[in-house]
């Protein structure tokens, strides 16, 4: 009786058993950047990315064809938009991810939720998590992804190119006086970037100093009078159509017009790549450096192909609100992109959970 039962159910048992054995042969257990243990396949072929920065890195490593799914906000490179989407960064659809049959999901601790990782692990899909707090973290993540995705050579080459560009920027701005920079994540109420963010790191390495470097938390509020007291030389806004206010908006707000940077029109919109810990973070570094140190960075764009966008994206606000185009202006980016960034999501999530 007992025997026949086993016999009867053997086919049902055999399949998962074989799968277990097979995956055991093909997988190794590693610890990812967030400290989770991951059952990693040796040669992952079907990838799902849960953040735009990861999607960008995958393409930068030349592995775009292995990507079987990404998020609604993954729009760079443009091919990424054509991949099946699994929803947004905070709440991706578990069903859609499972339906894509990935052998590895990639997430980021600054954007995705831990619950998503737990759920995926529960249904047996390995998820490898990245963390990014500095430019060096981003380089390390690229190298890590190279190892995990079995593309170490490409990752090495990419890392070297990026390092060379970073070194060139640092060489040029070295020794120059460091302007004080206020990075405005959101202006009403004034929300800025704390010390342990890659934004702060980018500003530092671009030869500036962030005036919100001493604040706790990643995205702290800064009182306007403290901003006035810290007297930033330059104010930076992340790009994206609806992210940056117009200069008129700013001048209408109490206190802002007293800021020296506002009086001298030193407000810039830098590329939204500054909010993505992807290879394009180096673009942002170059742009910030060019804004802070125009003399030192002169002639730089001509030498580096990737940086041609500089003139477009370091958009001075006063240009945008000239007499002809009052108030309303456009950059070509999809404004929804910003939502996926950890910055807003964290804030949004935190507030909504109150």
């Amino acid at each position, binding site marked *: 009786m007992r025997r026949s039962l086993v016999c009867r159910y053997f086919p049902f048992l055999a399949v998962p058993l074989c799968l277990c054995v097979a995956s055991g042969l093909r997988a190794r257990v590693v610890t990812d950047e967030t400290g989770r243990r991951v059952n990693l396949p040796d040669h992952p072929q079907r990838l799902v990315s849960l953040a735009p920065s990861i999607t960008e890195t995958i393409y930068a490593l030349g592995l775009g064809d292995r990507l079987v799914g990404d998020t609604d906000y993954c729009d760079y490179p443009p091919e990424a938009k054509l991949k099946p989407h699994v929803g947004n960064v905070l709440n991706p659809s578990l069903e859609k991810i499972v339906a894509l049959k990935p052998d590895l999901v990639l997430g980021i601790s600054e954007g995705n939720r831990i619950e998503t990782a737990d759920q995926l692990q529960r249904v047996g899909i390995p998820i490898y998590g990245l963390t990014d707090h500095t430019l060096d973290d981003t380089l390390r993540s690229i190298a890590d992804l190279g190892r995990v995705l079995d593309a170490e050579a490409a990752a090495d080459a990419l890392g070297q190119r990026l390092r060379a560009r970073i070194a060139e920027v640092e060489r040029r701005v070295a020794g120059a006086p460091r302007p004080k920079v206020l990075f405005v994540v959101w202006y009403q109420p004034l929300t800025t970037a704390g010390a342990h963010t890659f934004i702060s790191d980018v500003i530092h390495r671009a030869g500036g100093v962030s005036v919100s470097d001493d604040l706790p938390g990643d995205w702290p509020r800064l009182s306007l009078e403290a901003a*006035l007291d810290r007297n930033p030389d330059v104010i930076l806004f992340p790009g994206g159509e609806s992210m940056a206010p117009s200069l008129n908006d700013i001048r209408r707000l109490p206190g802002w017009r*007293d800021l020296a940077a506002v009086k001298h029109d030193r407000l810039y919109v830098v590329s939204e790549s500054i909010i993505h810990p992807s290879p394009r973070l180096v673009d942002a570094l170059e742009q910030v450096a060019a804004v802070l140190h125009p003399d030192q960075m002169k002639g730089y764009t001509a030498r580096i192909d990737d940086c041609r966008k500089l003139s477009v994206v370091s958009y001075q606000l006063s240009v945008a609100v000239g007499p002809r185009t009052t108030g309303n202006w456009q950059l070509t980016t999809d404004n929804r992109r910003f939502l996926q960034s950890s910055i807003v999501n964290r804030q949004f999530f935190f507030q*909504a959970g109150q």
Partner: protein
Amino acid sequence: MKVAATRRNVLVLVLVLSASCVVVGLGALAVGGVHLTLEEVWAALRGTGSNAEASAIVRDIRLPRVVLAALVGAALAVAGTVLQALLRNPLADPYVLGISSGAALGDIVALWVGGRIAAAAPGFAFAGALLTMTWVYALGRRGGRLKSFTLLLAGVVTASFLSALILFVLTLLSTRDVRGVAFWLMGDLSAATGAELRLLAPAVVLAIAALYWFAKDLNVMLLGDDEAAHLGVNVARVETAVFVLSSLLTAMAVSVSGAIGYLGLLVPHVGRMLVGSDHRTLLPTAALGGAMILVLSDTLARTVVAPSELPVGAVTALAGAPVFIYLLRRTAG
């Protein structure tokens, strides 16, 4: 004799409270994220300061904020006082009736539409509050009279329906929702512009003065609608006027400061404990007390975690909830 005594009491009370308001206001001007000496603050206020930064901080940042806090505090406290009297319900406050949800929805819809419309978001918030108020009022009226129970229920249901709509629009929204959520959940006094203040100040003062005109009628109506009618009060007219005026106050406050909880609920209770429920004394007490409390709360919000800031709604809720529980237990015992 009795009337004269009351008048004199009111006058003394108003003077004392106004004086403390001014003191609190000056204190609030003197502290903040940046340390300024009293001389610097005074010089900046008189416009004789040589320190341009101190002058900018005091005149452009602290002063509008203190004035805004005082106006919003007075508006919410007075609205709460008259609504509690009108509905004869100690839990009535400006937010229970859904008015703030209407304002939030108006604001968020404006941001959703985007472009130039987004710049007029406070106007939309105001319109949203007024529409909600009209709707709740229409629901709460039966046979030409306001039914307090129906009105409260209509307000609660409308508020939850509007909250659902807000969540829906937020999922469609992209980026501006940052302000939407942070602002509407916890309130924020940092963003009012000079133009908004110049509109708000006379409107709030006028609405409170107009409500004061109904103080006696409200006293009588505390006895009950029928008794009030027998005593010659035109109950329906008073109800409509008071409801519209208090809703206007709430709409104005919410459209410039977001949802700041507990003021409208708590200040009237504390006021009644201090001066009794004669609205001729209670209304000025609530107005000045509300102003003072919100200025104090906002000062705490600005200074406790300086150079960062807390949302002022968090401060009022942190302080307000324990006080309310204390009052509750005291009254129960």
